[in-house]
């Protein structure tokens, strides 16, 4: 059962990243530094992805919702945008065993996000990309 929720709506632009991170830190004060760092990585990668690709070349808005569940205490982070449909989970993971020469950098942000949270779900509904991240606190 969700107990409390907070919402932030910002223009989907990379220069709004500071606002997004501040919003996360404001409400995740209870998380330890390690958990907060992982959540920060996940939130940065997803927001930057939306800001870079969702509305290109135009602009739009990005919604970030923070909700909490009990037993066990878990944060549920939802990102919503109305840009082009994009399922980040459909992308194959990068091969992290490749050498520097062979190594591209595509897909790394999504891969880092997956590694930073317990669960990641994607849904396209009513013209919206809805990405949900869950992590136990």
């Amino acid at each position, binding site marked *: 059962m969700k107990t409390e929720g907070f919402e932030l709506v910002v223009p989907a632009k*990379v*220069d709004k*990243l*500071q606002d997004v*991170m501040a919003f996360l830190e404001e409400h995740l004060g209870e998380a330890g*530094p*390690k958990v907060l*760092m992982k959540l*920060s*990585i996940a939130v*940065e*990668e997803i927001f*930057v992805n939306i800001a870079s690709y969702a509305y290109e070349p135009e602009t739009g808005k990005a919604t970030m919702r923070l909700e909490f569940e009990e037993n066990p205490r878990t944060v549920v982070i939802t990102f919503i945008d109305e840009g082009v449909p994009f399922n980040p989970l459909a992308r194959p993971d990068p*091969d*992290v*065993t*490749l*050498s*520097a*020469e062979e*190594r591209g*950098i595509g897909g*790394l*942000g999504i*891969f*880092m996000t997956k*590694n930073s949270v317990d669960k990641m779900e994607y849904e396209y509904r009513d013209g919206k990309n809805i990405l949900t991240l869950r992590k136990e606190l």
Partner: protein
Amino acid sequence: MLNIIKEHNGEELIIKLAGRLDTSSALKLDKEVKSSLEGVKSLVFDFSDVIYISSAGLRIMLYCHKVMKTQGAMVIRNTSEDVKEIFKVTGFADIFHIE
């Protein structure tokens, strides 16, 4: 916020970073680094005060690693456990020379 201090000693360049190496600060570092690598044989990143790195930061590290492979060597020093774990998870711990 990311502080960047560059120290040239002949063909060695030491770049000391302090703060968060995220998408915002990566742009600044990208400019600083790309204008400084010419003639450098030894590039040292001092990560003692880096508290955070995202994929944007890793991208710059990979760029530097590739450039330095053709003209010398690159080493990353004094990495915190948390940052080290990110290098490990992303496979970069096996690519970069981390001291």
